[in-house]
């Protein structure tokens, strides 16, 4: 069963049946950023460490980094949001950024589940 986890940097991480992690930003993050006008994504093949800045989102006013929520290798990125960054504002939960193969398949246990993330956002 695919399951979704969350990072403190406001990313969602969907762990698929194929073991690949799909990463996007949360609705809370897109609301805080406002209108997103530009996205830069990591190229497939790039190795990223947990916490490493690997994507950039630009809103009208400011640039923000998106961090690798876990350590692994990028396998794919979503060209659709590069061409139409507004998709992230429309539906952050489906506008994925990139997919990665995790160095440690069990590492997602370090992330929060939905209830924990909701409580985390509430506490901010």
């Amino acid at each position, binding site marked *: 069963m695919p399951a979704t986890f969350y990072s403190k940097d406001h990313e969602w991480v969907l762990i698929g049946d194929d073991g690949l992690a799909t990463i996007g930003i949360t609705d809370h993050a897109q609301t805080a950023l*406002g*209108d997103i*006008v*530009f996205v*830069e994504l990591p190229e497939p093949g790039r190795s990223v460490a947990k916490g490493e800045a690997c994507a*950039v989102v*630009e*809103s*009208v*006013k*400011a*640039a923000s980094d998106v961090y690798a929520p876990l350590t692994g290798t990028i396998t794919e990125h979503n060209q659709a949001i590069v061409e139409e*960054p507004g998709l992230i504002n429309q539906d952050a939960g489906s506008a994925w950024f990139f997919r990665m193969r995790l160095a440690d398949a069990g590492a997602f246990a370090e992330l929060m589940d939905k209830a924990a993330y909701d409580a985390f956002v509430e506490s901010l």
Partner: protein
Amino acid sequence: MVPFAGYEMPLQYEGIIAEHLACRAGAAWFDVSHMGQAEIFDPAAFERLVPGDIAGLKPGRQRYTLLLNEAGGIIDDLMVANLGGHLQLVLNAGRKDFDIAHIAAHGVAVTAKFHRALLALQGPKAAAMLPEATGMSFMAAAEMAIAGIPCVVTRSGYTGEDGFEIGCEPDDAEALANALLGRGAVPAGLGARDSLRLEAGLCLYGNDIDETTNPVAANLAWAISKRRRTNWDFLGAAPVREMLDDGAAEKLVGIRLAGRAPARAGAVIRSAQGETIGRVTSGIFSPSLNGAVALGYVRADHAEAGTELDLIVRDRPLPGVVTNLPFIPHRYAR
């Protein structure tokens, strides 16, 4: 909400792009009460501190001018309106305390009216929403009642669009705001205010101009009134005159980037040959142009419209072209 010059200000209500486009297409309402209002009763004395023709500013007229220091640097940029019995100043929020101290230190009596509210109504439909102000031309200033509230109205703004800035007492501000919103204006925050002014090629104090900026370098020489260019008797006149005669080493230019990624303030500007020739002072995604634009200073030999440049963002060059300002034509009610 974001902190700005000591105030909690709304960055946006619904979204910067929607608010920006509402101002270009209809009318937007801004609460700019953080701006500092002040009164001066001696125009001749005040004139010594600014390069604008204040003695010649007729009752009912407003003018953009600059407070300069002895080195010709810009202490603040401001609006001055002749309301008949006195001048009304509108000062930048982050500079207003310094401005008042500076004006007073030069022996000019000035009364801060920082408690007063200031609301802006901007956009092509602003005039239709403010029938009380019918007959005012661009940069006119008048005292009048709006929805029964005593106001000081000027036909001016910071968006490049036709519109008004309306001052009132703080106790009346909420009623005035509700009246303007009730007439169909869309509330807009600081974010849209910044993107609108940048498209209009208007400087932001603290970003594009500061105490080290000679107005000639910032393309503000037009603010030196003709009469003041004969006597050169304002504070900071000599360095301004010198730069007018000798030319500026660096000039403020508009830059249209090829892509959507903005180059923000501080980004290095390189020539097509890779030489560092300047820096970005303001950069944003332009909702009207659907692409990135910037203001920045470049070496004078690269300031010609059409010059190709690279703006360095995240260690990579983003191509751009020097573009005549404003990026979006002004639509003032002349």
